């Protein structure tokens, strides 16, 4: 039997419950068929992506269409999560978008140096944030073509 986790389309790694709710709501709005998983800390995100720990029953490492990654995360921070994803043959081709409130050049530079696909900052105003997330959904689910053998 195929594990239901084998078909996740969008991985959201976000510890702020308000931001997480907004992001999942926008991603669900237009297409209920997209499978979304929300992970609230960096350690669990790595377990999920590499099928380890409590996700060890997942038969394979998954290839979601996009990973949205916050930087300030409990346990393992976003930069380290990115580093692990982009330095592992099994996961390096997964599109990763950093979605963070940090617009510090140090963070932007570190993310690019590690191979991030795109870096987007969270606007402060709710409406603007919702619009940015809509745009992310449109771009990474409809426009971008991921590799099927990532």
């Amino acid at each position, binding site marked *: 039997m195929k594990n239901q986790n084998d078909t996740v389309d969008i991985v959201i790694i976000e510890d702020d419950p308000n931001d997480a709710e907004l992001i999942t709501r926008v991603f669900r709005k237009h297409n209920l068929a997209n499978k979304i998983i929300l992970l609230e800390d960096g350690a669990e995100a790595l377990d999920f992506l590499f099928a380890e720990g409590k996700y060890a029953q997942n038969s394979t490492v998954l290839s979601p269409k996009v990973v949205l990654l916050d930087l300030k995360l409990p346990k393992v921070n976003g930069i380290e999560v990115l580093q692990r994803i982009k330095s592992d043959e099994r996961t*390096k*081709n997964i*599109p990763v978008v950093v979605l963070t409130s940090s*617009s510090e*050049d140090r963070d*932007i*530079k570190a993310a*690019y*140096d590690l*191979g991030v*696909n*795109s*870096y*987007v*900052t969270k606007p402060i105003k709710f409406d603007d944030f919702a*619009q*940015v997330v*809509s*745009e*992310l959904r*449109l*771009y990474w689910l409809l*426009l*971008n*073509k*991921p*590799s*099927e*053998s*990532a």
Partner: protein
Amino acid sequence: MIINEPIPVEKLDPDQIEIVIVEDSSKVAELILRVVRRLNLAGRYILIKDGGEALDYLFAQTNYVNAAVRRTPRVVFLDLKLPGIDGLEVLRRVKLDERTKNLPVVVLSSSIQENDIKTAYDLGVNSYVTKPNQSEELSSVVEELVRYWLLLNKMPAR
């Protein structure tokens, strides 16, 4: 189109080429340029028709010695089938070089072959987008690409 605000051209550095378009089909290039001009980005793009010249521009060599790498664009749209050096080889050299590896590169190609897509990701492409056949659809894809990479995506300080 979700973001319908105009491109804030006044915020862009007037000396910067923001979009590098590497495309050898004049029909597709003309269509892309029409969209780019409509978005008020005349003078902020450069169109290059072969792979060797694209590398010369991005590495500021031969005919582009004075163009200098400091003119870092916000995005490079790269076709795959190019005369001379092909798109995947351009991508490989850009992503292997410390001076250019952080440039956002989007492959914009008619190829939907998994080996092209896989190779592009293996080489570190930021995004892979296929060209629709209909020119109207291609226009809206290009507009979305320009808006995403100029308005939404942040890149390191230049």
